């Protein structure tokens, strides 16, 4: 029988799995794999400029294509730089397979050069992780990794590859089937439970759908929208669930939670049946637990049994994939009487509509409104912070649009690499990243990747010279003591009392230009539309648009930390 090295088998396995793009950064322990990848043309290899950005790129690639994202990094620091990205993907249920180099087996445990126990380090933030200790296990382990990553509740899998195992000759066969005795993801829906839930839905006077990220991951949006149309039951979404029904849908109320719409949070507090799909009732959406949906019976559909009845008590639990469940629901649902209930919801919307004060100065909403006007076929990638909440509140997510962000972990620095991954996976879509001046600087080196890959991204940087979300808390709850949040503070500011400051730190426009990208600075409302138009014309390189905004713009409404959903700060 023909024998090949582990390195060759790995490349073969990637092709068998249909991998078309991998994100890799080389090193001593993976140089042989780089060499094998060099010899072939089926798999595109992207070279980011930092492993953290690398894993975010693979993550966004996976989120926006539905494929498994693949990473290849070297041992030691290459591997540890994955940690934040793995946790990000794990929290948001993103399928990744990450290959890490490892020192040869006889060196493991010797504190060898660039040796770390990466499987041990990432045990609690991966769905599965394993070191390949025998060449004969390699094919099976890779096969299982892809299967585990994409099935059930998706998640990141890490495979650690000792250099000598990969150099060893062994079978060229890549297995066709997977059989893992401890891992049998659920693929059916308990019809009895589902029918019981639908009966409750029909009987309810104030029913409400709560859609989480699971609906988007399962790509159940279209069917779910049909269910909503048939039942006439209004919908609130989590931030990760935004787009479960088009945000322009008349039955869509808004996002719930800490920065949810007033009407959405009121609807949760007043509903008598909360029919939830694909959410884990994170503390940012529930507020104080005892006061969450106090009048409601709760139905909860989730693929992960451990997410059910964990934070809140559930009356009807249903373990199922969102698409499976919603498809079955679509067969059985009947119209519900929701006219009176909708009137109440409309009244809440009128009482406190989701909006920002219209001021002469350019505000976040002006920018996002223009984005909504100009782009109807786009992927929006948000970073983390105030701008993320503005996007989550105001970006219209209709059928051809998708919004991604680090929802669970809240990883600053996700936005820019996320946009790169999204664009690589969707060359025909417009990809727009929205970031703050803080998060933008956490992975700014990726300009090199974006420029060299000729990605026509639009990078919107909301620059207010502050770490705005923390500043918002300081303004509201910490007596305006802006400790550690001013991005212009430092010895220079103290020595010169702010009088000898450079105009910008950094000058984002010149920085973009230094990489060969285009940079535009916008300071007035009237310039927004033109800036987007200009960015659209720039088809071969990224365009950074820096919007200078006022740090006093806050995200409202806001549920106080540890408050109940009903006690929202509407405005100061």
């Amino acid at each position, binding site marked *: 029988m023909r024998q090949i090295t582990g390195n060759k088998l790995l490349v073969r396995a990637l092709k068998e799995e249909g991998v078309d793009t991998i994100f890799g950064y080389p090193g001593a322990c993976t140089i042989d794999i780089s060499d094998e990848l060099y010899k072939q043309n089926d798999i595109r290899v992207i070279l980011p400029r930092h492993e953290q950005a690398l894993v975010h790129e693979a993550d966004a690639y996976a989120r926006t294509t539905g494929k498994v994202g693949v990473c290849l990094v070297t041992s030691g620091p290459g591997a540890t730089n994955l940690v934040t990205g793995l946790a990000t993907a794990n929290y948001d249920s993103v399928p990744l397979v990450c290959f890490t180099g490892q020192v040869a087996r006889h060196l493991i445990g010797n504190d060898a050069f660039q040796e770390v126990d990466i*499987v*041990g380090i990432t*045990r*609690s933030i991966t*769905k*599965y*992780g*394993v*070191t390949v*200790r025998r060449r004969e296990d390699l094919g099976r382990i890779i096969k299982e990794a892809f299967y*585990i990553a994409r099935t059930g*509740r998706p998640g990141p899998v890490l495979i650690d590859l000792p250099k000598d195992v990969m150099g060893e000759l062994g079978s060229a066969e890549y297995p066709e089937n997977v059989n*893992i*005795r*401890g*891992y049998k993801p659920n693929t059916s829906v308990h019809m009895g439970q589902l029918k019981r839930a639908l009966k409750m839905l029909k009987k309810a006077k104030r029913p409400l759908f709560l859609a989480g990220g699971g609906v988007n991951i399962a790509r159940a949006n279209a069917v779910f929208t049909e269910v909503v149309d048939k039942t006439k039951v209004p919908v609130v979404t989590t931030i990760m669930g935004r787009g479960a029904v088009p945000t322009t849908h008349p039955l869509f109320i808004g996002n719930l939670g800490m920065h949810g719409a007033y009407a959405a949070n009121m609807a949760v507090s007043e509903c008598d049946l909360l029919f939830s799909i694909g959410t884990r009732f994170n503390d940012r959406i529930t507020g104080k637990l005892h006061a969450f949906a106090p009048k409601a019976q709760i139905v909860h559909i989730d693929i*992960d*049994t*451990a997410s059910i*009845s*964990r934070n809140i008590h559930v009356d009807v639990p249903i373990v199922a994939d969102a698409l499976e469940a919603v498809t079955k629901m679509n067969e059985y649902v009947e119209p519900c009487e929701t006219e009176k209930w909708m009137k109440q919801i409309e009244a809440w919307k009128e009482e406190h509509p989701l909006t920002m004060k219209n001021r002469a100065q350019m505000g976040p909403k002006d920018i996002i409104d223009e984005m909504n006007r100009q782009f109807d076929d786009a992927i929006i990638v948000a970073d983390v912070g105030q701008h993320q909440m503005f996007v989550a509140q105001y970006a219209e997510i209709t059928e051809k649009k998708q919004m991604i962000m680090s929802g669970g972990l809240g990883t600053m620095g996700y936005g820019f690499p996320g946009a790169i991954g999204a664009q690589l996976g969707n060359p025909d879509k417009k990809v727009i990243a929205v970031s703050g001046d803080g998060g933008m600087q956490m992975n700014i080196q990726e300009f090199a990747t974006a420029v060299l890959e000729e990605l026509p991204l639009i990078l919107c940087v909301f620059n207010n010279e502050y770490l705005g979300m923390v500043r918002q808390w300081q303004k509201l709850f910490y007596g305006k003591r802006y400790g550690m949040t001013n991005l212009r503070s430092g010895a220079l500011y103290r020595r010169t009392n702010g009088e000898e400051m450079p105009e910008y730190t950094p000058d984002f426009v010149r920085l973009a230009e230094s990489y060969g990208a285009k940079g535009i600075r916008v300071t007035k409302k009237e310039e927004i539309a033109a800036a987007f138009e200009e960015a659209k014309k720039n088809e071969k390189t990224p365009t950074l648009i820096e919007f200078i905004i006022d740090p006093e713009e806050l995200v409202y409404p806001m549920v106080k930390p540890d408050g109940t959903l009903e006690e929202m700060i509407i405005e100061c």
Partner: protein
Amino acid sequence: MDNNMKKRWISLYVENQVGVLSKISGLFSGKSYNLDSLTVGTTEDPTVSRMTIATVSDDETFEQIKKQLNRMVEVIKVIDFTDIFVRMKEILYVKVLKCTPEDKVEVFQIAETFKAKVIDYGRDSVLVEFVQTATKNDAVVKLMKEEFRTIEVVRGGSVGIESISMMER
């Protein structure tokens, strides 16, 4: 969350692989679950290990522990031992040091009472082996600590298996 705080047992079938023990114990520490005792050994199938885990928790946390264990790829099966008939024992060694002749007599009496075995004997020391429930072992340790000046204790942790004849635990 003090509703129904009590000791509960789980029997776990897991893949006999490097890192699995660490993953299971890491789940308990990472999610702040109490881990009272954990034993592990291979089964008749050398690729499978079986663990007996004792934890003090309330109903909700215990449900969550079982679900979290179940979703681990390396976990093959989770059996809740709390409300079923099981045989469960723990091995306990107590070495009594610096014994007077009177002490030795007492050690033998204790061993006889608890149906334990005296398995080793020196000029001024005695080694006793107890195989009984962990609760009884707790009592023995407490007693012997009070009775003797210097003792050395090592415990194995409970191992359990479902009973055949539905007898008492």
